[in-house]
């Protein structure tokens, strides 16, 4: 139940950021679903013993693939859907505790949380690159097949 609430909250966060970033219309519903899906994948990975890095990477790949597909449905760049969908994955609490440790000059917590935030951001970055490369290859093949079919 706790996880369901967390997932719903994360998805609402996606929609909130989409509004602040000035996206409009029925796309917001897709961002809700995408955000929820990404966080659900993360929870699933972590519960099955995967590390945070792997979990976040798979979650990012999920969000990335959803937005690659969505981009072709709504005819808008991938970025538009990807940024809101990734919002729940952003290491907000790590950044906060890192900052808090800095204020209290607690070097140990600062390092632990700081490393964790950088790891999370790298996992997301790597996930985005993997999806972009993958979809580039897939769509090139599809285009090529279309051309040879004609």
């Amino acid at each position, binding site marked *: 139940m706790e996880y369901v*609430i*967390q997932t719903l*909250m*994360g998805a*609402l*966060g996606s*929609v*909130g*950021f*989409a*509004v*602040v*970033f*000035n*996206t*409009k219309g029925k796309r917001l519903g897709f961002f809700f679903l995408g955000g929820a899906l990404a966080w659900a994948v993360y929870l699933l990975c972590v519960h099955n013993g995967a590390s945070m890095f792997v979990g976040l990477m798979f979650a990012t790949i999920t969000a990335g693939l959803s937005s690659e597909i969505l981009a072709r449905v709504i*005819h*808008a*760049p991938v*970025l*538009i859907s990807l*940024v*809101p969908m*990734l*919002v*729940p994955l*952003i*290491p*907000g*609490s790590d*950044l*906060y*505790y890192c*900052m*808090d440790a*800095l*204020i*209290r000059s607690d070097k140990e917590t600062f390092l632990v949380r700081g490393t964790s*935030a950088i790891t999370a*951001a*790298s996992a*997301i*970055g*790597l996930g*985005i*690159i993997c999806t*972009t490369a993958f979809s580039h290859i897939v769509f090139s093949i599809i285009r090529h097949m279309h051309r040879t079919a004609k």
Partner: protein
Amino acid sequence: MSTEELAQCSTDSPDAVLSCILDMGELLLTGGGEVFRVEDTLSRLCTAYGFQKINVFSITSSIVLTAECPDGKILTQTRRIVTRGTNLQRVAQVNALSRQLCVRPVSVAEFQKKLEDIRQERTYSKPVMAMGYALISCVFAVFFGGSWLDGFASAISGLVVFFAQQLIGRLRMNNLLENLLVSAFTALAVVLLVRLGIGHSPAKITIGNIMLLIPGIAFTTSLRDMINGDTISGLIGISEAVIKAIAIAIGFALVLVQMGGAL
């Protein structure tokens, strides 16, 4: 427009055409578009308008564009990008316009009009934006383990973030100082809310607000830029994000040290 007319257009006023193309890049960057998207879009547009030997170089704060006109003259224009935000609608619109122009280029006057239309595109009204801030704060306070009451408190301090940003933004001061003041106001609001008995955990309430302030998205996209090979843009983004985060931390520290007691 036929190809001959088009060639005529870039020979008659190549400067104006190039300037319009750079405007597209500027709109993309100020709306939060990626660097590789800017470079790609500008090269495509230049090709569509009959320029040759196109060289585009862009980082997050500047664009340099050199191209050869059909008559052999070489032109260079640069654009400095000072402020950046995130306006995804704008990125989508520029992208759509660019696709349209690559298929069917239009005259300079029409190009300028279309650019102006994108610039004038309305953003959400202030009350809606404020509700967005409140929603984000509330959901992330709960998301990171706060109670519903913490969520409620966070929504209120989220509104404080919004109004503080609006107010302090008008003073047009240094970016760093602006972030410092906004976070100081937010910390003050959180401390007062908890003293009034609204919310249990100041840490969870603040995390909701931090999601609005801390450049988590900038941090993540900068790392992506670096992995992608746009090292300079990535470094600029990461440095900006880190400096901003420190400014925010100092803002919080100012209030918390005064109020005696950690979060």
